[in-house]
């Protein structure tokens, strides 16, 4: 029994290693097993995890060199990321939780948020968006005629797109 699950675990870890390697290599432009630290967030998220900015910060601290070089080495990244995947940390937000979040912000219960409201919440609350992030979200989310976001439709569209 024990050896079976050991073997299983090894297979899972091996699979994780390959996935992590694939994701890492796509951003390893120099082909020297390093990536720019600014791409680590993208890599981690592309592997299906959803750390907050704060959690991401901590992860980066774990994989950085003692004297930060601006680059993250694969040798340091692999064990940390494997652990994250094994422990199923930073799970993605389920659709219904996301919907609830929008509903909370929609204090008037209209079923939509105005562009101004969305901008206000996203750039003033929580872990504020950068200008680029805000613009990108607006271009997909806002209906130009009503200048508002029907969040239920938006969520459905995003979920379909991801799958």
């Amino acid at each position, binding site marked *: 029994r024990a050896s079976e699950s050991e073997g299983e675990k090894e297979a899972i870890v091996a699979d994780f290693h390959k996935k992590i390697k694939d*994701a890492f290599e796509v951003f390893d432009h120099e082909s020297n097993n390093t990536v720019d630290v600014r791409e680590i967030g993208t890599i981690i998220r592309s592997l299906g995890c*959803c750390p907050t900015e704060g959690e991401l910060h901590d992860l980066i601290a774990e994989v950085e060199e003692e004297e930060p070089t601006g680059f993250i080495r694969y040798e340091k990244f692999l064990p940390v990321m494997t652990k994250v995947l094994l422990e199923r940390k930073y799970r993605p937000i389920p659709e219904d939780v996301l919907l609830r979040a929008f509903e909370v912000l929609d204090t008037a219960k209209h079923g939509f948020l105005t562009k101004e409201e969305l901008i206000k919440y996203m750039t003033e609350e929580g872990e504020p968006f950068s200008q680029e992030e805000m613009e990108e979200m607006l271009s997909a989310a806002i209906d130009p005629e009503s200048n508002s976001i029907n969040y239920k439709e938006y969520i459905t569209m995003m979920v379909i797109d991801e799958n």
Partner: protein
Amino acid sequence: MGCSSSSTKINSAKNALKAALVIQNWYRGYRARLKARQHYALTIFQSIEYADEQGQMQLSNFFSFMLENYRKIQNDDPAIVTRLLETNLQDSQNKHAYMGLIEVPDSYDGPRLKFPLTFTDIDLLLKAFQQQQILHAYYVLEVLFEAKKVLKQMPNFTHIQTSPYKEITVCGDLHGKLEDLLLIFYKNGLPSVNNQYVFNGDFVDRGKNSTEILMILLVSFLVYPNELHLNRGNHEDFMMNLRYGFTREILQKYKLHGKKILKSVEEIYTWLPIGTIIDNEILIIHGGISESTDLNLLHQIQRNKMKSVLMPPVSNREFDSSLKNKASSSSATPGTSEDSSSEQLTKHEWEQIVDLLWSDPKGRKGCYPNTSRGGGCYFGPDITAKILNKNQLKMIIRSHECKPDGYDICHDGKVITIFSASNYYDEGSNRGAYIKLCYNTAPRFFQYQVTTTSCLNPLHQRVATMENRAIKILKERMISQKTDLINAFQLRDHSKTGKISLAQWAFSMESVLELKLPWRSLRSHLVKTDSDGNVDYMSSFQDVHIERPMEEATSPLVETLYRYRSDLNIIFNIMDSDHSGLISMEEFRTMWKLFTYHYNVQIDDSQFDEVINKMDVNKDGSIDFNEFFMAFHVVHKYDKNATDITLPN
């Protein structure tokens, strides 16, 4: 009352904070996955691009093989050998003889150039090309003729000095993208005595306005020969043009005089300078360097003997003297034949130029063959340091590689890549950039991106479009090696279930296709998996197939012809020296024998003969190879506009 309302306020504030966090967190995850998908698509484009270039180099080996063995083929030189051997037929000093009897009709309403050219002509051309006018062949040939005269006078490396009030702008690959050149001139001004430019190669191929770009650059060069500098790129090579689009563009735009123009362009390429050196500090070349780069040698070689990267020097005495005979018999005037003892460069000289035009910098130390492209090498920071020190230089500016931001700096600031064709792979794939250099100041970078309506689409739509295109190209690659792939899969499918593990599938894909891609991440686009995570490997081929032109063509033959269609197309184009679109069956048969032997392709000869006989529709002993290739194309079952996006150029 007051307490509860303020605690409600605090609660709702807390809830708003939490809610915002949830949404931001979710969005960042979503956005990152979009970016990753975008990156994967770009990786696919790039690795296939490089694999194609490698195919090009393989073709070069084939030509060498063929040239070295031509006597054994037939008693007469096959047309292709003659074509490869022939040197410049247009060594005419006489403009009249050169231009022939071409006349510009009164009805022509395109731009009319006035020689000697002035800045008005540059303006005229820019305005005309913006309105999609085509310059008449007469003027094209005239520009080429005059440009060759001036280029011939230039040394292999142009030396320039900057001054505090004289900036130089360096631009990278343009690849026929007219909008990018226009954007650069708009932002940075037209070339003039006070506005120097260096264009670092790859003006042509891929984009649809290679002709216009070449004309604008050559005309500007003729007006400002001391301020407008052109370096040769790896696409300033007539054999590359056959595969990558420029040849086709010329023949389409100039149905009557296209061939003449092509020959002229072919010559112009060989006279383009190899590089530029600024302030004795900055070396500007198209590709890169190697550990054996010898600038002294490169300053002295006869650069015009470098015809094509696909024609390496053949080490064969007979061959060389035969070249000399043909050269001296076709020279119009005695003084124009080369005064050195050989018509070719030495192998060492040839390699030196290939290295300059094809190499890429990498993070790893050392110098090793550029296996992605098949030519030139990868050079590390230590190589850069060594060559720079040896020649008392400070920096290398090169192009050759598409970069997302239009430029890139590596090797500790000593190597700059500058790339000026925005949206190179697809809409939104990358920015373009140019550099401004000034005496004693750090280089300044300027970025831009040509915007079309689709650029304004939201990110997820742009990513989806690019992704679809990349996957389509990848699938076509897969179908062209279907037999080999299936063999590899079946080798691992011991129980013959039609399924193998993801790891086995990924391994097979990489080893057969020889593309280093993140197969696990791409899996969902390419193949079906079951609930256990095992891959149903045949599912990839369900909705894609190569259109079979006739019953006689079996799958392996169809695949082979499809896979090598670009190479075969190039060979045919070279064999078809009068550009009639026809070649004789005999020659094709001979070529096919050599080809299959060299490329180690196992095809039954008799089967091939049947196919070929069917192709000879008129039964006159000749094949229309354009029709031949049109017959082989990939059909995507669920594609509404079933066009093969990878037709041979």
